[in-house]
């Protein structure tokens, strides 16, 4: 080991963020990385556990103990080699992952976890800087053709893995640019879109064929896809947002978060929508309904757009500040989390349920909110009860619904291909990612329901391996 006592002698020290006053002025990434030397020191805190719970908790099974050691030794190249072996896109997860690994880090039992996510990000960024990340086209082509439909993290990972295995892969994207939710769902202050472009360029140099602006089922028929390709993988994500169908929902000024975030991302990308379609929080009282990460992204976006106030509503009670006994280490703890967007100024209300929207002249003006209390029934299931007399109104000029997603969009492609759906509305797959139609596979949120970027990458990789086996007939 580089330093068996590193965890005792080095204190955790993480990336910082740009000052709030400064960063809310723009949409550039807010995280400031540690110096490489400091980063190596941080890596030396890794204890190289014999049972690495971080690795176990990581959906892509990054082998942290190995690359942390190499990082601590200063061998960035080797660390990169190890990292990229399990994760196609550390530059995405390094920015966006909630880091299940850190919650499972053995150091976190008695102290502070290793800065695993940040170390990962540091490795991949240095790898790009040093030119370690180079196109490595496959030595041989198998002659098999695969269509991957949808270029979110699952589709990218699937396409990349299959391409490396030597298959000819066409990645279809209905939008004008690759990335799916990464590009249109994640604000630039968390993920600068050039990061995606940088990767896609490499994939293309490796021989991946990317077709953007092509909606399969519309621009190219499902039949053609099926007949042209030896296998197809559906990675269209779970883009159907959950709605809040209560009184007043039809009022202007109530928008789904995806819509809101996508628009802002387009603006940053210089692809601004026409004037009246534009959703802006400028000088408005903004209410974000939904306490998740997407909600948080909406807050940061609204603040940057110049909102007068931002309030976030969450129907569940505020989570505990520390790990509850019911979720002991190494499980992922649901604890109270303050994101960078929260720091930028917003009010958060927990146990708050929206009863109805009221408006003026067709536009939203007010939410009627009621306090709710939670307990559990005899089976341990959560039960909600409104608190009598606790209603209050909340002023709002703009309401963003960030309530999560239901499932993938059924219309069009999914319907055309004739694949069966699960009870939850996801594309149904077997243990090898194959749908009810032979040769058609599905992966990522489309098959599993909405989840983390890192899970999507894992899914894409796993599906690619299954497709590869299918194509090899093994």
């Amino acid at each position: 080991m580089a330093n068996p006592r590193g965890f005792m002698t080095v204190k955790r020290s993480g990336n910082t963020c740009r000052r709030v006053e400064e960063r809310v002025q723009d949409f550039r990434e807010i995280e400031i990385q540690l110096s490489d030397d400091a980063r190596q020191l941080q890596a030396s805190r890794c204890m190289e556990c014999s049972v690495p719970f971080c690795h176990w908790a990581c959906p892509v099974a990054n082998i942290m103990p190995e690359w942390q050691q190499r990082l601590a030794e200063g061998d960035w190249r080797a660390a990169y080699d190890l990292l990229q072996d399990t994760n196609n896109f550390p530059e995405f997860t390094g920015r966006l992952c909630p880091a299940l690994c850190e919650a499972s880090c053995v150091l976190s039992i008695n102290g502070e976890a290793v800065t695993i996510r940040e170390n990962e990000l540091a490795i991949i960024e240095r790898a790009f800087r040093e030119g370690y990340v180079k196109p490595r086209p496959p030595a041989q082509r198998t002659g098999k053709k695969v269509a991957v439909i949808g270029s979110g993290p699952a589709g990218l990972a699937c396409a990349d893995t299959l391409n490396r295995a030597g298959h000819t892969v066409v990645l279809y994207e209905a939008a004008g640019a690759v990335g799916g939710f990464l590009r249109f769902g994640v604000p630039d202050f968390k993920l600068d879109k050039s990061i995606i472009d940088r990767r896609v360029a490499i994939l293309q140099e490796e021989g991946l064929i990317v077709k953007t602006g092509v909606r399969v089922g519309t621009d190219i028929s499902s039949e053609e896809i099926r007949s042209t390709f030896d296998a197809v993988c559906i990675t269209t994500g779970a883009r159907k947002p959950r709605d809040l169908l209560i009184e007043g929902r039809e009022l202007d000024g109530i928008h789904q978060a995806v819509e809101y975030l996508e628009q802002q991302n387009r603006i940053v990308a210089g692809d601004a929508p026409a004037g009246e379609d534009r959703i802006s929080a400028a000088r408005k009282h903004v209410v974000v309904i939904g306490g998740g990460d997407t909600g948080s992204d909406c807050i940061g976006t609204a603040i940057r757009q110049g909102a007068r106030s931002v309030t976030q509503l969450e129907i569940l009670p505020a989570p505990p500040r520390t790990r509850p006994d019911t979720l002991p280490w190494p499980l992922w703890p649901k604890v109270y989390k303050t994101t960078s967007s929260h720091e930028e100024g917003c009010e958060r209300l927990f146990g708050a349920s929206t009863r109805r929207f009221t408006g003026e002249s067709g536009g939203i003006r007010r939410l009627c909110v009621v306090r709710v209390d939670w307990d559990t029934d005899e089976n341990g299931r959560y039960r909600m009860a409104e608190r009598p007399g606790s209603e209050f109104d909340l002023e709002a000029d703009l309401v963003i619904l960030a309530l999560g997603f239901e499932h993938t969009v059924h219309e069009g492609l999914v319907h055309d291909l004739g694949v069966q759906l699960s009870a939850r509305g996801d594309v149904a797959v077997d243990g090898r990612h194959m749908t009810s139609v032979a040769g058609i596979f599905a992966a990522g949120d489309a098959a599993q329901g909405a989840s983390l970027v890192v899970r999507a990458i894992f899914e894409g990789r796993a599906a690619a391996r299954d497709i590869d086996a299918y194509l090899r007939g093994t």
Partner: protein
Amino acid sequence: MSETAIEEHRPETAHFPEPQGLYDPAHEHGSCGIGFVANIRGERTHEIVQRGLEVLERMAHRGAESADNCTGDGAGLLMQIPHEFYKQDVPALPKPGQYGTGLVFLPRKDSEGAYCAEEFEDVVDEEGLRVLAWRAVAVDDSAIGEIARASEPAMRQVFIVGKAPLSRDALERKLYVVRKVIEDRIRRSALQQARLFYLPSLSTRTVVYKGMLTSMQLRRYFADLQDKRVTSAIALVHSRFSTNTFPSWDLAQPFRIIAHNGEINTIKGNRFWMHASESSFASPLFGDDIKKLLPIIEPGKSDSASFDNALELLVAAGRSLPHAIMMLIPESFNQLNPIPDDLKYFYEYHSAFMEPWDGPASMVFCDGRFVGGTLDRNGLRPSRYVVTKDGLVVMASEVGVQTFPPEQIEYKGRLMPGKLLLVDTEERRIIPDREIKERVSQRRPYREWVEKNRIRMADIPLKNPAPVGVPNGQLHELELMFGYNREDIERILIPMATSGREPVSSMGTDTPLAVFSDRPQRLFNYFKQVFAQVTNPAIDPLREELVMTLTGYIGTEGNLLAETPENCAMIQFKRPIFTNSDVEKIKDLEHEDFKTATLQMTFPLSEGPAGLERALSRLCEDAESKVHEGYSFLILSDRGADAENVPIPSLLACSSVHHHLVRVQKRTKIALIIKTAEAREVMHFALLFGYGASVVNPYGALAVVHDLLKKGRLPGVANAIEAEENYIEAVHKGLLKILSKLGISTLRSYHGAQAFEAIGLSKEVVDRYFTGTDSRIGGIGLEQIAQEALMQHRKAFGDRPALLESEGVYQYRKYGERHAWNPETISLLQWAVRSNDPKKYREFAGLVNRQNQAPHVIRGLLDFRPQTPVPIEEVEPVEAIFKRLTTGAMSFGSISKEAHETIAAAMNTIGGRSNTGEGGEDPERFAPRPDGTSARSAIKQVASGRFGVTSNYLVNADEIQIKIAQGAKPGEGGQLPGHKVDHVIARTRYATPGVSLISPPPHHDIYSIEDLAQLIFDLKNVNWDACISVKLVSETGVGTIAAGVAKAHADKIVICGYDGGTGASPQSSIKHAGLPFELGIAETHQTLVLNGLRGRVRLQTDGQLKTGRDVVLAGILGAEEFGFGTAALIALGCVMMRKCHLNTCPMGVATQDPELRKHFAGKPEHLIRYFTFLAEEVREIMAQLGIRRFDDLVGRTDLLVQRKVDHWKARTVDLSSLLYRPERSRSSAIRCIEPQNHAINSVLDRALIDRAGPALKYRDQVSTNLPITNADRAVGAMLSGRVSRLYGESGLPDDTIQCTFHGSAGQSFGAFLAKGITFRLLGDANDYFGKGLSGGRLIAMPPEGSTFKAEENIIVGNTVLYGATSGEAFIRGVAGERFCVRNSGAHAVIEGTGDHCAEYMTGGRIIVLGKVGRNFAAGMSGGIAYVLNVDGNFTYFCNCAMVELSPVLDQDDQEFIKAWLRKHVAYTGSPVAGAVLARWHEYLPKFIRVLPLEYKRVLHERKLAEIDRQLAAIREEAQLGASY
């Protein structure tokens, strides 16, 4: 056991049972008491015979009895032919020397007996001889035990003469031929009782009387022996203590020439090599008769018998008896041994073609003229002798077996390691070792022969240096093809290539057995190392380097029976791991005798799995034809493996060719050089050598190391040569460690010795390719082996991953090898015990049980047979289950104080038992704590380091556990580095803070089973209330060892699985030594039941037990109690970091770091909850099985059934031998039902305690006088136990109890002697004098009237003051080997010592006023020795690795010596000490101070601290003064 039981199961001829279940008679071990009495002048008297018998009888405690308490393991006597006596019965006898005679054991069945006699006469006739007469041998079978009687042969004696006159030697040779021919003929006959036929001896010179008797029975059984007309000048005797519970008449000793106390560890190899060389035998003395002698080694006999066979051949073919002995048991002759050069050349000459028969041995031998004894190079068996002024010599395992008046004694001596004692009754004198060896070594110009013919590897010029790496770009492919993974690189090759050492790890292995793994396994992984326990000590290859060697020879061996210069025309290598250039050297040799052929170890991919068998057959045939073509070196290489050619597992190729060539008797003609990329870790090399490789060239591993260097992955390594050297050095060190674990000293005898067992390989594969290897549960065949090879090959040429895999064998990997302890199991168990949630426990247990069934462990393949359940309320309560639970032996030192005390408190609360581990226990813990709980460990361990083992420690135990071996590292010692020895640890271990503590690999008082019996006896004397348990590790044959342990009167035997945890151990030991507990416990249970010993002993097992189901399964296999180590730690917070050895456990469990210890979050209730959940689970299963009391399921294998599984490898496993129930379990006990008889009721201490009454009650001074004999053992132990119980650690005031003894004291005189007791011994003493001395004072001196010089004669035996913690010893005379081994506090004065004096000493001081043996101060980390350097050559004898030698300049040292010499004079009247004191200034310069460097530093620091303290005081005073 009842009489009826024996009647019912008395087979027609009781003998060894056939192999059944897991029992196999091939694993029997023996050890013994031996000795001889001889009249040096050759005068034959009946008195000699009587004395011989008496010698035996006085060592009765060294033999053993079987379950009937009456049948002995065997006793016998060899003497000169009593011609006058026989003449009376056979008047026709010609003169002595013109006839041969011997007893004949015949089948009892009349027809068969007659048939044998007729056949015998035919053979005699065919060989030109004539049976002169048959004589009835009068025997009294009322004297013997039931078991012995059941297998008693008919006993007759034969007299044979030549048809024509023959010289004595010619007749002797013919008799030898006759015996070999008739033995072979009867063996091949279809007789039912063929095995009863046996010839104890057939000679013109000597006759052997022996049988399955106790020492006491021999005299009565053979009426001849009592006849006064029976005379001899020599009586050589033997009594046997066998782990062997089914001794048989023919295995009693002496054999034809020898009697042996010891064990030949390399016996498999020795037998193979003897067989392999038979085809080259030629001897002018025998001519064509030589073929009739084959096979030389009688099949189905003991190791000692095989040795006798080999020795007999060498002697018959013309070598003298001493010469032959020196060939088979050579002393160590490396540069650390002070022997003449000629002798070194003699040994070197013979070592080129004869490997040592290696193992602990005290051997006595006699050919009618010469009688003598020798010890093996390690000298681990005691052998003492006395020579009287009237020409008698008595040699025996003990002193005191004959009593002589003091003035009669000429001198007293002991056999020394590797030395001979030889009496020539014709020359009428004792020929000193030096003289006889000089004579033998100068018989031929060995030096010239060697210098001329032997070629040293180092001297061969290198013409074509071979590249180390492989061509660019091919390395990755090579790595993939041979299955290298990232762990191989990171955890094996990098540490080896940087440090030159094998990597160390901690905790136990928890991956599936190879046969259960889903991943392709290297064939190496289907083997486990076997190791020494109890019957046989392991060696310390570091501190006793002088006996170890890896030197070997390659070339063509000649005729073993001839002495020609060409016999040593071989290439000598010092290092068996060859570099690529070494191989080139051999290939390029321009020498007509040395030609090299190369064969490919690959099979064609195109042929698929079936291609493997064909390729192996081809390989064997080709190898054989290469021998015919005259090649002397055969390289088996996998260098040619590529996309079309799949590598054959190198071990399979090597062993196949080796065994094929042994079978066709060509093996000794050619050397096998294995050139493989596959071998990388130490275990791989050990296997290759064990299965016949002469040398190994690991070109693949070397290429990887080279590549690592280029990539900068070898920090601190300067260049390629250094990297290669480091790696090879690490392999060599690892090999020495593996050899030494089995008590083997030389690679030459390890070579082909197959010191392994297979697990998960089919009988067909083993019988054909690994002939003679044990494989107990069946397993995969050649097809699956081929499949695994193909899977690996596909990785390289199909998948071609860019990075090597992270295999996950050493560390958990999500998609790697499975681990029983993984994130799910660890966190579920912790969740369950912290939240006290039975549901979570059930989740945990369910997960574990499912994992086990994957399958993962053997018990995972076992299901319960459905039974009629009983209501759970009727099942005994959890409290009854708790009593069966113990926690593992984890020392305070390996785990933190907090963890250790938490475990103890938890176990005491529930009525289970915790274990101190090796490392003592703070006496503060003996008393209950203020809150009523107790942190006293109920089990006190006694391990090889004896840390903190005092009389007081022992009396505070409910159970005393002798740790023979540890699952994670059987056969190895340990070391607690000085920096970890803080004040608290030092206090509990009776050590010095900052001074390293080394645990030797063996207990230095257990070299044999009778030694273990002695230690059990010692401990039982100290604390008769405590249960004495013996901890063994599962391996094949552990059942027979356990039977021996049961006969040694252990109350309990613990069988540990190989997967138990450790605080630090070489990685290869953790993974590759020992077997899972299921096999060990089942074999032990079956073997004990088979021989009726099961009822006397409780069985415990451990090894990754986790759930109630595990406990019930283990119980059904035979265990009554259960140990939990890893699981207990995990319940208390361990997360399997495997960082114990680094002291960085972040959970505060296995660390001494004060900061980290704060993190310890375990509470007694966690453990209590775990065991409560587990006990409830046990009860639930019991209810399902219809069992109310746990006792009722022990051994009930009928409750189990093997589950059918679909796994491609696991389905080949067959557990029927595991589930076997011996027939005898219907009538005999199948669990412990009665206590052992410890025979401590009539020990001498009872009298001592009586006489010491006033001292014990009122602390009044008492003194007493008593006679003592060698049968009085452990004198003082019981008295000391009493003192400690009454007065605790502080004991009594000095000299409160004073005892004087007259005579020869038995073993363990003054053991654990407590403070306040003074023992004076006028006479001499055996081994283990002052063992564990706990504050008492011991004085030994020759009795009045002795005329010999005390300072030149031995007075106390081996291993004196072993593990002494405090006290004093004054010994006027010389001690044996290992004086003051592991002494940590006693002060002693002695007048001369044997080898290894002050070994592993950590404290105390000794003064040696005379000569010392080799290896003084090896492993000495503390204490001081002052040696009077009489001959001025002390430096040569001192092992200076850890110590500094200096003159005694310091005034304190000088004062100490003077003061203690004055005491020595006062107590013993020593003239030596008197002279030194009288001329102090003359002697002072001759004293050398031996001071361990570590200790010096500590002393220095102490001095500095003292100066600081004084300075501070001065300053304080000055300040005070100033303020006035």
